[in-house]
């Protein structure tokens, strides 16, 4: 099995989850209020009260086949709005 880590702006969370559901992921976990720095911008906690929001970190444990489906769906989102996606190996306990 695989583990997919997605990190992107909280405001895109709904669109992203819709894409994940469309790719029929078995489940996902969301951490909001995440901050960070990418190539493009710094996201800090103190701006959360404005509408900008912070980042969301989404973890998905799934098979490679699901990753392939996800990939098509979310690559445009990530390239347009920014954010990162990394895959690693994971095996169920």
């Amino acid at each position, binding site marked *: 099995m695989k583990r997919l880590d997605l990190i992107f*702006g909280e*405001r895109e969370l709904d669109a992203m989850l819709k894409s994940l559901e469309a790719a029929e992921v078995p489940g996902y976990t969301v951490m909001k*209020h995440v901050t960070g720095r990418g190539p493009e*911008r*710094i996201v*800090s*906690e*103190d*701006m*959360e*009260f*404005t*509408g*900008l*929001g*912070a980042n969301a970190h989404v973890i998905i444990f799934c098979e490679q086949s699901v990753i392939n489906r996800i990939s098509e769906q979310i690559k*445009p989102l990530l*390239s*347009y*709005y*920014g954010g990162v996606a990394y895959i690693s190996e994971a095996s169920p306990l």
Partner: protein
Amino acid sequence: METSLILQNVLTPPVLFFFLGTFAVVVKSDLEIPAPLPKLFSLYLLLAIGFKGGLELERSGFEGQVIPTVLAAIFMSLLIPLICFAILRLKFDVFNSAAIAAAYGSISAVTFITAESFLENQNIPFDGFMVAALAIMESPAIIVGLLLVKLAAPKKRPNSKRMRLGSILHEAMLNGSAYLLLGSLLIGFLTAAHNPSGVEKMQPFTGKLFYGAECFFLLDMGIVAAQRLPSLKRAGPFLIGFAVFMPIFNAFIGVMIAKLLVLGPGNALLFVVLCASASYLAVPAAMRMTVPEAKSSYYISTTLGLTFPFNIVLGIPIYMSLVRTIIPLNG
């Protein structure tokens, strides 16, 4: 006279707490107001100011200066972004220009609140219906900004399907802060009309507590504004100049319109402040979604890092002098 007004403004609790926050960043104190507490105060202030505005709108009715003022407010929130866009295009691409322009066409509720406190402190009367102008002015500039992108941007934006008119209007009218402000205004209006005892029971929450909560929030705004300064410096001298001179320019147009509308000095100041202030709540939220090509650090650091502090500390008393000079006989 301006100096004395500035001093009087600076020595009020809201401005002093704003300074306390700013200074905390300057001297590297670890004072912080963790999320989501600023959101609590921000929501509270919008709810309370909307509710109180609704009450007073019901009392004053829609006669006299109400309709003209609100129409003038809408006009200004359409005009200002166009002027800003033209100026910003000298240096920036369409996306950044449109996003910054929209922010300056919209308003800052906290600047408005601070101006109200300033007027109360000076014993200058003003009308509750100005809150309606505040609520109404939050959104049109967003629409102008998004239309500018739609018209002026290169045609092949990847996600341009987002830019249909429906979703533009949605972003403009239904973002959290505009929605809460308008909704609370309506609730205040309905309560005043149908349930006077409800008005009285809300008073300790929306009325009495307001000033202190404003101070607490301004403490946080001081921290947040000061933290934007480094990225403002990176944004360069053009934007820094823009963030100070544009509000003054907009204030100038505003005072002229206020003269035309024959507003009293209190209402005139509030109208001018609406023109001069820039949004760091509704507009950035909408722009982040619909114009991700624009750099958020540009529209945030100008509005929040410079224009907001400038208005709070120097702008309001300067605009008051302007009002007194240009429309001396009204009111």
